[in-house]
């Protein structure tokens, strides 16, 4: 309802048109009655011809109104859908990483597409139908009462029963449709997981087990759907039947009245026509009620997304972060994704501008968490992080992230041209700057060899880049951005040695003169680092330079030698 507000003009126009249509629709039976009574009964052929012409004019008028009403309603409802999808997109961009970690792509897509469509259907046509129905019911009832109050009351005696059946259908259908939607979601998820893991399924010859698992979800979906189908099949025609009983009453009692000369035949015919008009919207209710029920469910699902508060937002008094020098301080930082499971337990350190910080530790020791906290992808549970004396929770997110660059192993590029992908780092950068970044990232050579050079499309509909090529494009993107603080992972994805060297060169270009946080995979990084942080179970167990730690930390010396033996890099 709220969503319609910006389109109140169109909506109002649509509703006015609806009133006009209803007025015409109510006049038509009167006209027919008049034709039957005055024309046919009195055998006035002239009157018949003229009134039939009048009838056609009225119908034409109704058609024109119907057209405009349809267009206006559609415009308003399509706008509502469009606005809802935009709102969902904006909200997705706002929601924190932890929300995205928990959510599934398929689920979000279903909500943004199917659920929005259901709401659109209701705000557009179904909603109008309800108003339409109400106006027709009231109008017809008044006219019926005018013709013959007693007959009218008898005919309308079925209405409460009708309303009750329609309501109860809706009430029962809603929870069921929700369950079915969920089950279909599960079925889709099963399929998606199976397809994504197809190599594993095949390699371990688990096709049969997978088929059995899918069949279980499939059967459950069937039995739920069949149950709903039964409810619908046996309840919706009931509404029809009840409506039809009114006709029985009118013909029976009304016919009796005519034989008693208390009613004319023309009145009886008009009565039957009005009643027919009454049953149409009522019958439609049988269809609309499920649609509204579905839309309510959809609405709940959509607002679940829209109403989620992002765990990471700008503080009300947030100010933009001025250009920083690159000093980073962690003060007793605690972090846990899930309650009472702490990933970082009180980490403190200080980094001077331009320093290279190497993070070392076993998998799950908290290295990735530290680097995710600096651009505020997550907020610490306790403690604080300062950049150049600014608490990062007190500055705007955009200004903070503008000055931080991230190059991680899992490189995401967008399905557009290579140029656009590099320019993503700094839209509006000049061609020269873009080329310079690509050259420094050792990406220029392979890009020039592509069929359309920098304008080559990559991704789904274009060229597939190898892991090493993707990584270099990502480095170019970050170089163009020219961040003061850099976060990276010095691992090179599975590439051959020559490519690996090129990536190393690219990374060195990137690191020069910036504060760098590196998840260290290589000894060369450790030797070069200004500060090495050794993490274990979310705690900082040692810190210092390579030379210092070799002397002071037995653990480091051991790790270093082990690594030397194992990797020798």
């Amino acid at each position: 309802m709220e969503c319609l507000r910006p389109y109140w003009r169109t909506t109002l126009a649509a509703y006015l048109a609806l009133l006009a249509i209803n007025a015409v629709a109510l006049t038509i039976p009167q006209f027919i009655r008049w034709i039957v009574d005055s024309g046919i009964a009195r055998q006035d052929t002239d009157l018949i011809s003229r009134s039939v012409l009048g009838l056609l004019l009225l119908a034409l008028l109704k058609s024109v109104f119907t057209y405009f009403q349809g267009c206006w309603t559609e415009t308003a409802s399509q706008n509502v859908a469009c606005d809802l999808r935009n709102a969902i997109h904006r909200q997705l961009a706002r929601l924190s990483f932890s929300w995205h970690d928990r959510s599934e792509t398929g689920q979000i897509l279903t909500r943004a597409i199917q659920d929005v469509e259901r709401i659109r259907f209701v705000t557009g046509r179904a909603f109008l139908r309800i108003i339409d129905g109400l106006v027709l019911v009231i109008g017809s009832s008044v006219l019926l009462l005018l013709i013959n109050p007693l007959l009218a009351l008898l005919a309308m005696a079925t209405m409460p029963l009708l309303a009750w059946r329609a309501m109860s259908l809706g009430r029962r259908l809603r929870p069921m449709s929700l369950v079915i939607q969920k089950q279909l979601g599960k079925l889709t998820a099963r399929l998606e997981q199976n397809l994504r893991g197809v190599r594993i399924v095949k390699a371990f010859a688990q096709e049969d087990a997978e088929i059995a698992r899918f069949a279980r979800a499939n059967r459950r979906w069937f039995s739920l759907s069949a149950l709903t189908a039964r409810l619908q099949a046996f309840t919706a025609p009931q509404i029809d039947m009840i409506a039809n009983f009114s006709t029985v009453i009118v013909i029976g009692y009304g016919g009796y009245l005519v034989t008693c000369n208390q009613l004319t035949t023309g009145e009886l015919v008009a009565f039957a026509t009005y009643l027919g008009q009454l049953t149409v919207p009522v019958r439609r209710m049988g269809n609309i009620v499920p649609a509204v029920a579905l839309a309510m469910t959809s609405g709940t699902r959509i607002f679940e997304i829209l109403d989620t508060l992002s765990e990471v937002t700008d503080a009300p008094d947030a100010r933009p972060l001025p250009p920083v020098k690159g000093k980073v301080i962690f003060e007793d930082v605690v972090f846990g994704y899930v309650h009472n499971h702490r990933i970082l337990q009180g980490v403190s350190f200080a980094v001077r501008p331009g320093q290279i910080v190497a993070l070392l530790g076993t998998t799950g020791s908290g290295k990735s968490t530290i680097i995710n906290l600096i651009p505020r992808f997550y907020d610490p549970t306790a403690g604080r992080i300062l950049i150049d004396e600014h608490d990062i929770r007190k500055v705007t997110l955009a200004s903070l992230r503008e000055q931080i660059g991230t190059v991680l192993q899992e490189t995401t590029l967008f399905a557009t041209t290579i140029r656009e992908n590099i320019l993503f780092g700094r839209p509006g950068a000049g061609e020269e700057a873009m080329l310079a970044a690509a050259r420094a990232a050792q990406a220029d050579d392979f890009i020039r060899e592509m069929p359309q050079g920098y304008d080559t499309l990559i991704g789904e509909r274009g060229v597939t880049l190898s892991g090493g090529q993707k990584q270099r494009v990502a480095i170019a993107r970050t170089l163009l951005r020219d961040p003061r603080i850099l976060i990276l992972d010095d691992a090179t994805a599975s590439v051959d040695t020559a490519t690996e060297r090129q990536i190393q060169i690219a990374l060195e270009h990137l690191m020069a003169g910036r504060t760098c946080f590196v998840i260290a995979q290589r000894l060369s990084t450790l030797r070069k680092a200004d500060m090495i942080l050794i993490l274990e179970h979310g705690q900082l167990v040692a810190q210092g330079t390579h030379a210092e730690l070799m002397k002071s930390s037995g653990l480091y010396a051991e790790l270093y030698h082990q690594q030397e033996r194992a990797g020798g890099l």
Partner: protein
Amino acid sequence: MSFSFGSTGSAMGPRSVMQSFGRDSAGQAIDPRILMRLLAFLKPHKARMFAALLLMLISSAFALTSPYLIKIAIDENIAGNDTVGLFYTTLLMAVVFVALYVTTSLQQYLLSWIGLRVLTSLRARLFAHLQALSVSYHNSHIVGVTISRVISDVSVINDLLSSGVATIIGDTVVLAGIVAVMLSLDISLALATFAVLPLMLLATWIFSRRARVAFRQTRQRVAAVVGGLAEDISGIRVIQAFAREGVSSDRFEEVNRANRDANIDAMSLSFIFLPTVDFLGVLATATVLWLGGIAVARGELTLGTVVAFLAYVTRFFQPIQDLSQIYTTMQSAMAGGERVLELLDTKPLIYDEAAAVDMPRITGKVEFRQVGFAYQLDRKILRDINLIIEPGQTVALVGPTGAGKTTLASLVARLYDVAEGAVLVDGYDVRMLTQRSLRRQMGLVPQDPFLFTGTVADNIRFSSPRATMAAVENAARAANAHAFISALPEGYATKILEGGVNMSQGQRQLICIARAILADPRILILDEATASVDTLTEMLIQDALQKLLADRTAIVIAHRLATIRKADLICVMANGQIVERGSHSELIARGGLYADLSLRQ
């Protein structure tokens, strides 16, 4: 009667939105061959379908009786002041309405049931078929598109098969019935009513031609919305990291607005069409009133006949409107059907030969004999590979990207079939074995450690679903994964989120190794299992692998040469060939490509 609601053509309903993730077929509107094949899905439900049609005819007959009863009531009972007769006529009407309810309900339920059944079994069939298709099929098809085949396209077919077929047959019969009744009531009045039909056909023809273009446009636009949204969701971390939320929202809004406009355009067409049909209906009514009125005035016709006729005219246009709606449903069902059949018709490239035998327990000898392979005809990936691996040996494959290492290893598990030569395991050509018996004895630790959503235990247990919890824990211990799993808040019951985002790369890799250990394979394939983890985790993995490799045949693809020094045999690959082979010390001594690579690292 302006818009029909229940039978909304699916081109306008929410479902059409989901149906068109895939490419849009520009083919013929209705292809009889596809139609016949789709109808064949109804075969197992012949009896039920027949019963439903019969019920539909009966209920249509009941529906047609009521206006006739009204005519009797007005013309005979009321006009003749026959109150007793009126009582019986109305009683009969009541009975007819009850019978109408019963038959309609049963028929609706039967049709929905059949539709759901067909849908369920078709989905099961597609899923099973997808399992049979080889890895190369899955490599070349986007997951989202395949999902839309199984979930959405199938449901569009259901629209056609259950309600569509029934509506067409039912409406045609009803229409014939009405025409017959109208003709029997009064021929000239009936013919006058039918005069509107050509106009109606013309309107339908013009509309459907334009609508096809317009609705196709909306399908393309909505596909763009879905695509754009899906891409932004998958890239959301980068978008936020670069603070580009505004730019991406602007881009999405543009696509979104284009979709809105296309929809408004398409619907505007409907809003011309439907009132036109409506108006034509009134035109027919007016004709009846005019001609009928004059005839009554002349005493050639009774008033009751005209009233009954008016009722039939209204009913006459309902099925016609329905049928023109069905046309839209048919079109989208055709498109969906074509895509589904295409998938079902795809022959698996790798299948069990009729004479295939079960592989006995593998000792572990693997032989590549003159093996050649190409994904596409013109580009050979492997050439002239001759290699013998003795039981229990560890063979390492090294070389630059694109040399064919992963392909060579995949051939042992018969994930692809060779183009030339043969791959033999214990002397059996892998093509003469059942795939299941062969792969049951193999283990794969992939380069990209894939975890399914579900618990950690489920993932380890994936290779042998009936393994006990103790066996799962033992496998995890052997994989050096037990320590970190136990430290998780819910231990082995911890849920893995989509894409395994709540596990680090190294943790995912360790779980994958535990999975392979639990399978207790005779032959193990490790595809750069340690390429993307930090050195400390790599040590954990190396240690786990040592245990895993003991007395099994193993093929190890490595990128860091240091990790494979102890291998029994190292094969250096380049351009699809094995260019050097020997032990680490032999290869270093030779001073060839390996020595060079080793030096550079």
